[in-house]
């Protein structure tokens, strides 16, 4: 085919298309006429006022408000609470602010919060909204960078990044990539390159970025480009974990109250729940609820029919005695276990309820102070035969850390006897 450079193709829009577009264009022009801005002077006045405000704000005591305006949305109380409770004390909680947010393809809202530390570092909190609305605590993950980490000398722009996998209530996996840039001014655009997918251009908010990881890919590289499109920074990310082909059917995460009591006028409780392949354990000991989810190990019950987590114990402020105010533990039992008995140091026995192969127990302070310290778990089969034991290695309160390797001796009260039904 010969290419005619003097007489290139001369297509035309169909007459009816021109007429239709004309009508709309006229409508649009009339609309613009109604809302037309006569002059740009007000714009310049506003810009000048903002510049003046920036200069005068500190003198007028408005710098904090102005900083909030410029720095982003201040974090709400639950987010500040997370920063305050779960991160080093150097975090300046009151300066926690929103950095950016995205809505995932499935509609979850993910927010990235940041707070500086008094030592010149920075902490971030990645919050996934709507994942566990029943919990008063925001759900997400936390990370901190030290001042040295942020300020270490670089020869060029640097991309600090990581990925996050969150199992949602319906069992699906939400995968995110987020991080920050140093020498932001030199990186005009950031893209994520993954196997077999077109490059994904990431939105940047100040120094930060946050995006949903492309589906069906595990390996990716972040590439920063300057204003001329040249690559000025590159970051290879660790491969994501293998994704479970078909997540198991999972019931909605429900709170299962296993233990409750009143303490200082507050109800305190603990719960376990399964969520996809994860076990979530939560506790509210008269304060904010704390909860964490961990992957359930596939190699369960390799050491017997009882998989025990704990025990944990705590003392209230002012209690300097050698007794704990509360002790808790939880875990799973193999399907062969029909009955689980707790033997305490005073030789008392207690049948622990098992729900969905999970158990959880919270021992109250008055029982502990009376010498009934949880000591041993014994599993029985349907026929009443003992099929396993797990020792609760509790350290007495007040013992120096150097003696932690010497837990309380187990109770010896004829543990092999059948429990009272």
């Amino acid at each position: 085919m010969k290419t005619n450079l003097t007489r290139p193709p001369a297509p035309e829009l169909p007459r009816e298309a021109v007429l239709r577009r004309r009508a709309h264009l006229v409508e649009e022009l009339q609309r613009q006429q109604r809302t037309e801005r006569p002059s740009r002077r007000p714009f310049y006045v506003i810009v000048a006022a903002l510049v003046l405000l920036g200069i005068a704000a500190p003198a007028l005591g408005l710098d904090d408000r102005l900083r909030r305006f410029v720095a982003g949305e201040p974090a709400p109380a639950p987010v500040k609470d997370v920063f305050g409770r779960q991160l080093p004390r150097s975090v300046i909680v009151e300066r926690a602010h929103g950095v950016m947010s995205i809505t995932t393809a499935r509609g979850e809202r993910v927010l990235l919060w940041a707070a500086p530390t008094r030592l010149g570092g920075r902490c971030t909190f990645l919050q996934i909204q709507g994942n566990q609305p029943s919990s008063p605590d925001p759900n997400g993950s936390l990370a901190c960078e030290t001042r040295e980490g942020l300020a270490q000398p670089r020869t060029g722009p640097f991309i600090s990044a990581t990925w996050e996998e969150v199992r949602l209530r319906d069992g699906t996996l939400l995968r995110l990539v987020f991080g920050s840039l140093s020498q932001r001014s030199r990186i005009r655009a950031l893209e994520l390159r993954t196997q077999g997918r077109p490059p994904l251009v990431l939105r940047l908010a100040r120094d930060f970025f946050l995006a949903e990881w492309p589906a069906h890919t595990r390996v990716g590289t972040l590439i920063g480009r300057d204003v001329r499109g040249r690559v000025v920074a590159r970051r290879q990310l660790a491969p994501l974990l293998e994704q479970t082909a078909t997540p198991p059917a999972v019931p909605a995460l429900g709170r299962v109250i296993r233990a409750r009591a009143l303490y200082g006028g507050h109800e305190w409780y603990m719960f376990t729940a399964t969520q996809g392949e994860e076990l979530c354990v939560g506790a509210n000991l008269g304060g904010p609820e704390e909860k964490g989810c961990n992957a359930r190990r596939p190699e369960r019950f390799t050491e017997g029919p009882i998989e025990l987590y704990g025990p944990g114990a705590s003392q209230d402020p002012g209690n300097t005695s050698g007794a704990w105010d509360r002790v808790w533990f939880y875990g799973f039992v193999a399907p062969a276990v029909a009955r689980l008995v707790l033997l305490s140091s005073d030789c008392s026995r207690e049948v622990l309820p098992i729900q969905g192969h999970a158990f959880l127990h919270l021992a109250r302070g008055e029982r502990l102070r009376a010498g009934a310290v949880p000591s041993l778990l014994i599993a029985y089969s349907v026929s009443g035969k003992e099929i396993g034991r797990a020792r609760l290695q509790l350290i007495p309160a007040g013992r120096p850390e150097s003696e932690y390797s010497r837990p309380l001796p187990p109770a010896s009260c004829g543990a092999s006897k059948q429990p009272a039904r």
Partner: protein
Amino acid sequence: MGADRELRRRLRTGDSEAFGLLFEQEANTVYRYCFRRTADSALAEELTSTVFLQAWRRRDKLAEVDNLIAWLLGIATNVVRNQRRSLRRYRAALARLPRYDSSADHAEDANARLDDERAMRAVLAAVDRLPRRDQEVLALCVWSELSYEEATRALGVPVGTVRSRLARARRRLRELAGASEHEKVSEDIATGEGTR
């Protein structure tokens, strides 16, 4: 000529119906120009609307305009040159305008449009070896058949510059044509065929 003067007077006063009339008369001139600069009919359609929205914004300059087509193609040159910025600026307005529904085309029309795009891409691939400014002169003087003076107004450069750019474009294309299939056509350009 009197009707043209009357149209310009109405345009200057911000008569949107007059702009509608101008659009009806010149939409295809602008569309063809945009298509020939982009080889993309859908994009050219968007750019055409953008040109008229931009023209509306600049209507206060109409007092200095004596050739509406040259004026519109001058705006179109800038719009094509800065197409991302232009489309972004008028994104909201463009979103309100209806798109030409190409799915309603007959198969023949659709094929013709694809053929045009393919042919135009080949032309642009050849012309792409010229500097952008020379390409603009070529598109205005050769493809849109503007005179040197009209191209001068469209581009806002002296007539001598238009002449020298066009001459350079012809010479360059002649050189490029050496062993290529474009030889004859390039010679057409070199001899001024197609130029008013």
